[in-house]
C-alpha cells in the first residue's frame, strides 16, 4: 500500500511536469513558422522569422529572406557554393559560406521525422 501511494505521487508529478511543458511549448512556439538564424564567426548576428521579407548583408554576403525560403544572392567568395545552393525552406537546413564565415540556418517546427 505504501508503494502504491508512492506510485500515485510519481505518476501525478510526471503528469504535472508534462502538462507544464505542454503549456510552455504551446506558448513559446509560434505556429509552424521557421526562424532564420544567421551566424558570423559562430556568433549570432541576425534572428528573425521567415515570413518577414528582408535583404541583408553580412561580410560581403547578401542574404535574401522571403516567405518561400532563404537564399544567398551574392557573395564575393571564389567558390560560390552558397549561391549555388539555392533556396532553403525546411527546418534544419543550412547554407554555409566558408570563406566569409557566414552560416544561415533555419529552425522551426516543420521537421520530417521518420520514426
Amino acid at each position, binding site marked *: 500500500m505504501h*508503494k502504491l501511494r*508512492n*506510485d500515485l505521487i510519481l*505518476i501525478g508529478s510526471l503528469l504535472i511536469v*508534462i502538462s507544464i511543458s505542454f503549456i510552455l511549448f504551446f506558448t513559446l512556439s509560434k505556429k509552424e513558422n521557421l526562424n532564420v538564424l544567421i551566424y558570423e564567426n559562430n556568433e549570432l548576428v541576425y534572428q528573425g522569422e521567415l515570413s518577414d521579407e528582408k535583404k541583408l548583408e553580412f561580410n560581403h554576403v547578401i542574404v535574401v529572406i522571403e516567405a518561400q525560403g532563404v537564399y544567398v544572392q551574392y557573395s564575393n567568395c571564389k567558390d560560390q557554393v552558397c549561391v549555388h545552393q539555392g533556396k532553403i525552406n525546411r527546418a*534544419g537546413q543550412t547554407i554555409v559560406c566558408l570563406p566569409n564565415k557566414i552560416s544561415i540556418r533555419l529552425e522551426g*517546427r516543420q*521537421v520530417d*521525422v521518420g*520514426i
Partner: protein
Amino acid sequence: MSVKRVCIIAMLLAMAIVLNILESFIPMFIPGVKLGLANIIILIMLYEMKPTEAFMVDLLRIVLASLLRGNILAPTFFMALSGGMLSFFVMLLFSKIKCFSPIGVSVLGAVSHATGQIMVAIILLGTASVVYYLPMIALLSIGTGILSGLLVKIYLKRSITSRFIDVD
C-alpha cells in the same frame, strides 16, 4: 549457470523479441509510440534474475528485433537502442531501491525510454525541434507504462518463475 537457466533466459529473450515485433503491428496515435510489451519481460527479469542477465536480454532483444525487422543501423535502431539502454538503467536503479511498486518502475522506464529516443533523435536530425514530441510521447508512455507495470505485478505475485529456476 545451469543449462536450465540458460534455456529459461533464451525463452525469455525469444518472448521479448516476439513481443517487440508483434507490438509494431498495433497502431498507436503517434508514429514512434509503441505499447512497450517487451518491457514486461525485462522488468520481470530485473525483479527475479541477475541484472547482468537482464541487461544481456535487453541488448540482444533490441539488436535481434531490429535485425529481424530489417532496420538495423538505421536511425530508428539507434533511437531504440538509446531508449532501451536508458530505460534499463533507470528501471534497474528503481527496482533495487524498492520505493516504487513495479507499476512505478515501469512508468519511469517508459518515460525514460521516450526521453532517450528523443535525445538521439535530436542528435541524428541535428535539430532540437524534435523535443516538441516529448510531452506527447511521455504522456502516452505513462499510460503504456501503467499497463505493463500492472501485468508485471500480477505475474510477480504468482511467482511463476520460481517453479523452474532459483529466483534472486
